[in-house]
């Protein structure tokens, strides 16, 4: 790994005014320095975004749900920094809380897909050529081609929108790319000397998988999981946009976009702001993924 100059870290952390705790700032700085620029930028944006979303209920200037029909569609002002929507609700406040649902669902979905997919992929890859591997691969071949939005629409139509339905329907398809990647990486690892040595020593199957295989394949898979995260953010948004995700009156970026459609000519910011929010969120995780991907590739460049 990378060796940093500690004194440099202390000096730099003192320059970070946003961080209340010194130790945390130091650790963040250590974590970031020397990484690819897209990774650094992405992490900073994502940390800021998640912090805002968590703190949102306490820092919003107005109650995001309170309507004020007297002040409908008002332009940005000192009172309403970004103006108000068609029901007179404060756009800025709604923007601050509007990512909670989407980001949470996307995050949980990716985490689940990552875990399930990696485990299945590694187990299949360890038993490559066997019946279990064949079946898994064929199932993945088939599942991977099914659009996840369609599965989500179908399940939401029947069970109604909600966290569980959305997460379940996106994970049912979502684990397949992880499994395919994990299997491929495991196959490459199978041939390595240390795995064969562990096999000769009689290490158990699960021990080899947990101690030798997973730690060695986790970086490229982590890179992909951030790329998938961006994809999921947009998919969840699409469902909300269609009215199959978050239900009104809760604030949500995609829902705000949908609501803004009739008024876009009068007040374009109603559409520009939430769209930009989704874009920035998706871009930040994509950048993190890209940075990790480059590191994973340069880390073991002899492997391709």
């Amino acid at each position, binding site marked *: 790994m990378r060796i940093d100059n500690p004194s440099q870290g202390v000096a730099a952390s003192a320059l970070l005014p946003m961080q209340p705790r010194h130790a945390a700032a130091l650790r963040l700085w250590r974590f970031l320095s020397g990484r690819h620029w*897209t990774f650094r930028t992405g992490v900073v944006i994502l940390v800021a975004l998640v912090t805002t979303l968590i703190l949102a209920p306490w820092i919003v200037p107005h109650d995001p749900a309170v309507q004020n029909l007297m002040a409908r569609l008002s332009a940005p002002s000192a009172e309403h920094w970004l103006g108000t929507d068609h029901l007179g609700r404060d756009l800025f406040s709604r923007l601050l809380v509007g990512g909670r649902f989407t980001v949470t669902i996307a995050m949980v979905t990716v985490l689940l897909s990552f875990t399930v997919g990696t485990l299945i992929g590694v187990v299949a890859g360890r038993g490559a050529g066997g019946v279990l591997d*064949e*079946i898994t691969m*064929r*199932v993945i*071949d*088939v*599942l*991977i*081609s*099914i*659009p*996840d*939005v*369609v599965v989500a*629409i*179908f*399940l*939401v*139509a*029947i*069970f109604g929108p909600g966290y569980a339905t959305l997460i379940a329907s996106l994970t049912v398809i979502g684990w397949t790319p992880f499994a395919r990647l994990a299997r491929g990486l495991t196959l490459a690892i199978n041939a390595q000397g240390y795995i064969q040595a562990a096999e000769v020593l009689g290490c158990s199957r699960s021990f080899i998988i947990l101690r030798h295989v997973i730690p060695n394949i986790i970086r490229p898979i982590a890179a992909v999981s951030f*790329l998938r995260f*961006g*994809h999921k953010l*947009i998919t969840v*948004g*699409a469902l909300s*946009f*269609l009215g*199959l995700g978050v239900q009104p009156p809760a604030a949500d970026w*995609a829902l705000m*976009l*949908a609501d*803004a*459609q009739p008024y*876009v*000519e009068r007040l*374009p910011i109603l*559409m*520009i702001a*939430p*769209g930009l929010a*989704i*874009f*920035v969120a*998706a*871009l930040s995780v*994509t*950048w993190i993924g*890209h940075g990790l991907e480059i590191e994973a590739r340069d880390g073991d460049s002899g492997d391709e």
Partner: protein
Amino acid sequence: MWTRLLQRLLILGLMLLGVSLLAFLVPYVSGGDPVRTILMSRVRDLAVDPAAVEAMRIHLGLDRPLPVQYGAWLWQALHGDLGYSFASGRPVALEIGRALGVSITLALTALGIAAAVAIPLGTLAATRPGGTVDSATTLMVQTFVATPEYWLAPMGILVFALHLGWLPSAGWTSWTALVLPATVLSLRPMAYFTQVTRAAMMDVLQAPYITAARSRGLSMRQTVMRHGLRNGSLPVVTFFALWLAGLLGGSVVIEVIFAIPGMGRLLYEAVVNRDVPMLQGGFVSIVALSILINTVADMLYVALNPAVRSGHAH
């Protein structure tokens, strides 16, 4: 090769059976009473006459045991009869057929645009890794991947339809109506195609036969055109198919925004109307078609690659 295809067909059949069972059963286990749903969707009234419910139940054959119902449904589905829409009363299969045509047109146009931009761009980026074109391409890919189409589409309507008046804002009447939705829809696949092309071309351009071709006096351009593209575009074929399948129902947001009567909108309206037969039929046919397209793509990949074709692949 053939055993793999057979295996695949077998799994495919089993999966389809599973999906159909899911599509059939889920509305029942979810606790909703389809008859009530139908009647409610028709009369928009919560107080439904119990006698009418009973009559409807018998009329629809819903009084029979579930396995019998499933058998009948599956049998009819296999014969192209997916029942009648609760909402419109028209045959589901007919509606789906019409919507599929629209969606395939839209998807192929979008993917065509995507490939037309992505393949040259990805190739160009691969010839000078780390160069200006490559860096700009990477940034473009990341931007397109992160742009929600349900944001870009209304903005596009605002600019090109409402302000400039160049293109219609919605509908499915002339080819001009196809331009805006297809372009918006093409950006994400364009980004992914570019990435895949770039990676594939980077591999190919390091291959020994590229050096050999250059040693015969081909310029870099000629080498890429004659030997690079064909080898480098093989992975793109698989990708193209995955996206084609994905866009058949996955373009739902675009279809709703632009009022395009395609598969996605059909599903969306089925959800809004709680139109169970339409939902089941649409779901099963999209899944079946996705799987089919993907299988065809795999065979196409084999057909395009002479070494795999005769079983010399590693």
